[in-house]
């Protein structure tokens, strides 16, 4: 009897040990997130002790290697990022939403089983391959259509980014749309509405916030996209004014310059400051998307 008790006790200790062990491991993720923020912040700190936030964020010119008077304004880079991001979103949104609606409400099971893996495969194409296609096929094509000397510009980069975020928009919107209770559709059809009227007036409005979340998450991806943009956007330092101008988004600037700078120099720290801006921006976008999704899920959990 006593032996038995000891054994149970031993089991209980072991169980407790395993639980605590697993809990400790799961803290690693939190440490990573906090670590990323801290390391970016520490490395960027030097910059903000010299430059004012206004000079950094609103300065129109980024020219770290100028003799005498290097310039550290990232407004042009920010504008490049926004142009490519919103251009990509504008192109991907109509196609992505139509596809999500089609897959959730119209397509037969067989069609769905063809298209869904295809979309997963598009998501798995490395961005560097899309960048290569952008250089070899897309930008000469754009240059020819619009009669430009070079097709490496914000428009080409937007198209490549659109391809990259299409799978995100489709799969998240489709999840949201499919999670709507089937009673919505049934009730509306029973009242004599057509399927399209039901989608337009009942289902789409009900899923609106979830779709907004899908857009936010796609936006986060587009802002952080590096390789395709680096290869296709043209990377001129001049302040961009139209979609036919070459742009230099924040991600591309970091990727180009970080291999060439002296570690510990002001330039090095300035690149970390751009990284910090990028991190905070995507963090905020994802957080908002996440909040919207959890609200949506709670609303229709029945």
């Amino acid at each position, binding site marked *: 009897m006593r032996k038995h008790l000891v054994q149970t006790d031993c089991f209980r200790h072991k*169980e407790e040990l*395993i*639980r605590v062990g697993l*809990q400790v*491991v*799961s803290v*690693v*993720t*939190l440490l*990573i*997130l906090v*670590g990323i923020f801290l*390391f970016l912040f*520490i490395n960027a700190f030097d910059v903000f002790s010299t430059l004012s936030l206004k000079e950094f964020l609103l300065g129109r010119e980024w020219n770290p290697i100028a003799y005498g008077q290097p310039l550290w304004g990232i407004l042009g880079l920010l504008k490049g990022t926004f142009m490519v991001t919103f251009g990509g979103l504008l192109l991907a949104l*109509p*196609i992505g939403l*139509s*596809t999500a*609606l*089609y*897959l959730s409400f*119209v*397509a037969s099971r067989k069609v769905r089983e063809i*298209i869904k*893996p*295809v979309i*997963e*495969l598009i998501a*798995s*194409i*490395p*961005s*560097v*391959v899309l*960048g*290569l*296609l952008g*250089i*070899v*096929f897309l930008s000469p094509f754009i240059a020819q259509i619009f009669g430009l000397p070079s097709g490496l510009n914000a428009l080409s980069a937007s198209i490549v980014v659109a391809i990259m975020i299409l799978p995100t928009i489709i799969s998240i919107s489709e999840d949201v749309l499919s999670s709507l209770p089937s009673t919505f559709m049934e009730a509306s059809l029973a009242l004599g509405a*057509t399927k*399209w009227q039901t989608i337009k007036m009942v289902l789409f409005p009900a899923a609106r916030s979830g779709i907004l979340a899908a857009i936010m998450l796609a936006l986060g991806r587009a*802002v*952080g*996209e*590096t*390789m395709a943009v*680096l290869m296709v956007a043209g990377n001129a330092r001049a302040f961009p004014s139209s979609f036919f101008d070459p742009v230099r988004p924040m*991600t591309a600037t970091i*990727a180009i310059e*970080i*291999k060439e700078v002296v570690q510990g120099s002001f330039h090095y720290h300035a690149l*970390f400051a751009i*990284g910090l801006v*990028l*991190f905070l921006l*995507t*963090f905020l*976008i994802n957080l908002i998307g*996440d909040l919207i999704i959890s609200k949506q899920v709670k609303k229709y959990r029945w």
Partner: protein
Amino acid sequence: MVTKQVQQSIIFFLFSLASWFSVALLLFIVAFVFSKGVPVISWTFLTSFWSHLDITSGGIIQALLGTVYLGIGVIVFSLPIGVLTAIYLQEYAKDSLFTRIISLTVRNLAGVPSIVYGMFGLAFFVLLLNFGTSLLAASCTLSIMTIPWIITSTQEALKAVPFSFREGSYALGATKWQTIRRNVLPHATSGILTGSIIGVSRALGETAPIIMVGATFFMDYLPHSVFDKFMALPYHLFILATQHADPLAQTYAMGVAVVLILFIFVLNLGSFYVRYRIRSMKKW
């Protein structure tokens, strides 16, 4: 009423066009890359060392093996941490503030841009821990990028195991850990593996982070230790496409692209297949 029906057909037709557009897009991308890249590929291209001066005579074995080594490194670091965290979140954690913070962290980590992971890797693994620009630093950097994906797919796999499996085991007097290890994990293994394979294959396609933490365009030997630099397919492709003077460089970049796409598609399709087989075998 007829007009409404007509309107509906037109709109649904447009929707279907949009959906098939994705299929056309994938086919076009794959066809374009393959038509340009396949002629370059030969046994020599796949198995011999890269020749720096005459790119037509050499191969990409260092880059191919470099990517394989990197894949092994990523699995070694990210799989245990990812799976254990998912087990904790799915099986042990109660709905507390701690749990909610960890879940939120996981979702947010998945959205951090890859280049930011690269900067963190540079500042932490390369400089602070003094790994140098190396295979080890790159494996660690890509691992922390992969962990959130592995956590999410492992949680899904654990969720899919019916609750009655756990209750049955408890009823026989098993402890929680015994239940998880003997009665839950075996049934979730396929889901965990497929999710992890997809996560790792995505990490291996990344270029931006490894630029900073250890990839190099050319070395005439294979890495001897984890502290050596390495060549990798995506970085090789990037340099060939943008910074190589040889007029044939872009064609050879297409050849590398074919190998990279096949590498990743085979991993992905393999995991689709495993998932499909396992699903049709399950009886519950």
